């Protein structure tokens, strides 16, 4: 690694549970990283909030600690660029002060108000048909009926806190807030702006707000930040920040992107029809395509992304690796009458060993990982997880493997419509995110998807590396088409033909489970709400 001569990006990866900061070279090599946990407030009414100042403090603390390690000379850092969780709404005043906590992507308080605004008249799955047509035509999608997006958040604030709405200068997304703190500018990236469902996305090089779309919900585009490309150099890092971090005044800030488009770059999947699967607490499938398209049936759309002339098909799923932490914290080591030991430090490694001891198929146990409902390919807030086909002989080990297989079956559930959307077989699949550290889980994905899986090297830094590539491209040091060649793979997993019939039949039963139980879940959980 030519660390001494290379130029570096201070790359920020701001997730829901932590702020990660990494020093990454223009070639995508990671010199080091630091992490700070971030709190999350879940409210009984479906609210999910974070204090933007916590993000910023986390980023600064982690950055100082990282730079303090002197892994590279401070002069080698030439740019700062962020990838963040998306779909958050932080109202700020003219001075950039937050008027309330940020409603993050999990916040579903707006579910009812959204239905009122988007429904009525000729109904099409909860939407007014005319409004839906307008949205799909211009944006490629429409505000989620779950209320879990920026359109819903803004509607909710306007309805519930009209004074605060009036005082709001700009509604910022998470990335926007970070860029504001870095540069003092009120801007957003094109891929983030798409999340307002108020932009015309037909030409990815010219994503712009449409006042008429805002008016469908009684909102105003004046309250939204200016749109920049992900690779635009916004300007110099604010001098106070540069000083505090001990960086040069010449360090610039590049817009960045939210996590899905960033991971697509960080996984090296920059060419059309190269898919990546991110396996973290939640998961998603992302693939660049050369066209804008909407598949209403599977709730999928290709949208503008970090690459200015491309569209990215993204299908996010609610809980993936989160199922394993749930199993640890709520079941195996639940704080109840019988807790007599703490979870081992190497829990995930132990889990992998346990799952490996069980043959494919988990001895008949099937798990569906819908702990919080599901977003794709069905937008269903009511469905919940289940273990099926438990026998007297079923062991913990069987259940653990079933968790991992269930998540992979869930990935296939969204991967198949994604292939249909793309109009071709998507193979091989690049895997990133913490869950993809598990060799077993990569193999299970290969077997279940029946696709070759490439386990990307340094896969936990994929989002940060994506941000670093955006800076590198923005500074003209790297071209998008070079990125494929800069990515290395830790291992490649090919589907085992002997498991084909087994996993295909399990997948059919998986689909059956949703079909025959989702109404039961809806009845149970609607009544409880």
């Amino acid at each position, binding site marked *: 690694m030519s660390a001494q001569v290379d130029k570096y990006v201070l790359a920020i990866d701001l997730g829901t549970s932590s702020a990660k900061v990494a020093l990454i070279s223009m070639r995508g090599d990671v010199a080091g990283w630091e992490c700070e946990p971030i709190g999350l407030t879940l409210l009984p009414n479906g609210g999910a909030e974070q204090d933007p100042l916590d993000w910023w403090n986390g980023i600064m603390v982690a950055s100082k600690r990282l730079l303090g390690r002197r892994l590279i000379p401070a002069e080698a850092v030439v740019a700062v660029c962020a990838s963040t969780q998306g779909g958050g709404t932080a109202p700020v005043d003219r001075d950039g002060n937050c008027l309330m906590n940020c409603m993050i992507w999990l916040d579903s308080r707006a579910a009812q108000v959204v239905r009122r605004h988007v429904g009525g008249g000729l109904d099409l799955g909860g939407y007014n048909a005319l409004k839906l047509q307008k949205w799909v035509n211009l944006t490629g999608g429409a505000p989620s009926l779950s209320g879990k997006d920026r359109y819903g958040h803004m509607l909710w604030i306007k309805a519930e806190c009209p004074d605060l709405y009036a005082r709001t200068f700009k509604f910022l997304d998470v990335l926007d807030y970070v860029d504001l703190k870095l540069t003092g500018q009120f801007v957003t990236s094109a891929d983030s702006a798409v999340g307002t469902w108020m932009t015309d996305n037909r030409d990815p090089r010219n994503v712009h707000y449409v006042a008429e779309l805002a008016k469908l919900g009684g909102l105003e585009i004046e309250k939204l930040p200016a749109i920049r490309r992900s690779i635009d150099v916004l300007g110099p890092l604010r001098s106070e920040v540069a000083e505090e971090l001990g960086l040069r005044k010449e360090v610039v800030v590049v817009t960045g992107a939210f996590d899905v488009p960033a991971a697509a770059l960080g996984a090296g999947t920059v060419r059309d029809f190269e898919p990546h699967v991110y396996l973290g607490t939640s998961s998603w499938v992302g693939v660049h395509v050369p066209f804008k398209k909407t598949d209403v049936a599977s709730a999928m759309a290709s949208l503008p992304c970090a690459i200015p002339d491309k569209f990215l098909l993204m299908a996010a799923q609610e809980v993936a690796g989160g199922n394993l932490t749930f199993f640890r914290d709520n079941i195996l080591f*639940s704080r109840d*009458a*019988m807790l007599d030991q703490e979870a081992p430090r190497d829990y995930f490694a132990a889990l992998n060993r346990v799952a490996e001891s069980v043959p494919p198929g988990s001895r008949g146990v099937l798990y569906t990982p819908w702990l919080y409902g599901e977003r794709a390919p069905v937008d269903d807030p009511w469905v919940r997880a289940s*273990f099926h*086909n*438990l026998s007297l002989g*079923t062991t*913990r080990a069987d259940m653990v493997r079933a968790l991992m297989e269930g998540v992979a079956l869930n990935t296939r559930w969204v991967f198949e419509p994604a292939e249909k959307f793309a109009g071709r077989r998507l193979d091989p699949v690049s895997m990133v995110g913490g869950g993809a550290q598990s060799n077993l889980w990569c193999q299970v994905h290969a077997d279940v998807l029946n696709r070759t899986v490439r386990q990307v090297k340094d896969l936990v830094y994929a989002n940060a590396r994506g941000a670093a590539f955006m800076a590198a491209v923005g500074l003209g040091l790297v071209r998008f088409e070079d990125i494929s060649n800069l990515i290395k793979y830790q291992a490649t997993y090919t589907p085992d033909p002997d498991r084909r019939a087994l996993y295909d039949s399990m997948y059919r039963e998986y689909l059956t489970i949703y079909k025959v139980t989702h109404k039961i879940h809806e009845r149970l959980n609607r009544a409880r709400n």
Partner: protein
Amino acid sequence: MEYILAHDVGTTGTKAVLVSPSGEVAATAYAPYPTSYPRPLWAEQDPADWWKAVGQTARAVLDRAQVPASAVMGLTFATQMLDIIALDAQRELLGTCISWLDCRAGEEARWVMGRLGGPSIFAALVGATITGKDMLPKYVWLKRHAPEVYARTKTFIDCTGYLMLRATGRLVFEWTTASVTGLFNLKSKSWDTGLMRFFGLERSKFPDLVGSTSQVGGLTAEAARELGLREGTPVIAGAGDGPCAAVGAGAVGEGEGHMCLGTSGIVGVMTRRKVTGKRGLATIQSTDAAKNLLIGEMETCGECLNWGARVLYGREADAAAFSLMDADVDATPPGAGGLLFAPWMYGERCPVSDERARAGFINLGANHSRREMTRAIYEGVAFNLRWILESVQSLYGFACPSLRVIGGGAKGRPWLRIIADVTGRQLEPTLQPQEAAAVGAALVGGVGLGLYPTIEATRNVIRPSQVVTPDSGQHEAYTQAYRAFQSLYPSLRGLFHTLNRGERTAA
């Protein structure tokens, strides 16, 4: 003081219980014996092991109670049912006993049902489909797969019959255990020779029938020596463990019900009426000649809780584990936060009869943890019991507003509360819930000895230890979850049949 000595000859061992005419247990003794699994699906026991264990425990129990052999008025048995023993002309065993756990005769079960119009018509006629575990298919199996054994067989008996033979030297087949062969006529209390002919079985291979309260004979000198009892001690036939348990529960009046919360679960109702089995409910002969016993069996009941202890908590399913699980259940509000558990861990018999059904947790959310899962198990078993009770009510009109409760589960405090609230029935656990079969056999013996005029007259001997009254508000609150529970099986049936297509209920 005089006593009746009753033996509960079960699957894993025998328990001897010395019971006074007023129903008090003076002493108990237990001895285990093995089951062998010589091939997949096969399960066998050696009847000689039973007799040896009966001898050991008979001596042990007298010793423990400090009672002389002369104080034993009579000897009787509650036995495992659905087992097959073949004897030759010299009354010697031909091989071992084919246990009720054995499911080798699956093919023959399908053949039997086929001869009567196929599984669905068969189920409509008989109340449930039969499986490779049932007796009639096993007789057919022997004839087909072991023709030389079948040819040498002079007499087929079962567990009770074997014990009678060893005790008295007589060859008999007791009514209650005969009533599960599929070859017994409940109305006439005789072998159904027509059915035997239809399936190619010889009437001559089946010995004479005796009622549960019959004195079969006196202990032979040899048997008296082996058991440490007096020669000539009256031996009363007794009955299968299920029919005995109904007596031990004290639920022997017309339409009176009991619930057994053991490894498996049972709802039983005694009735004079001639009822035909439906939805997995079976009608068998009761210990009372005038009454049938309507039985709904839940394949895994307490066993679901055992599984929870083993798998969710990583513990042995012992009293200590259950007290901690009970604490978790107490700390969790009714409804388990919307989490449902389907308790079919080994297939199910009633009110759905499906060996391929399996268990599951449904509606698991991030707001749940192990304690909700445990509560869901307790509630899920209760939902299935409610389903059985509602079937009994809607099909036959037996409301059973109160039920005697026996079996190990009768001691579980939060579980009884849950079952009472879910089912809306008053529950009355007996004083010795785990001894119910043996105590019941003793009372049957008492009738045989003339201590009580009838089986029904024994009902006041058994007393409840407490009364658990259902809370009508809670009953109402459970109803929504119960409706969802009821919709699970019809929704998931196809899934079970696809996933478990290759499975035969294995031992």
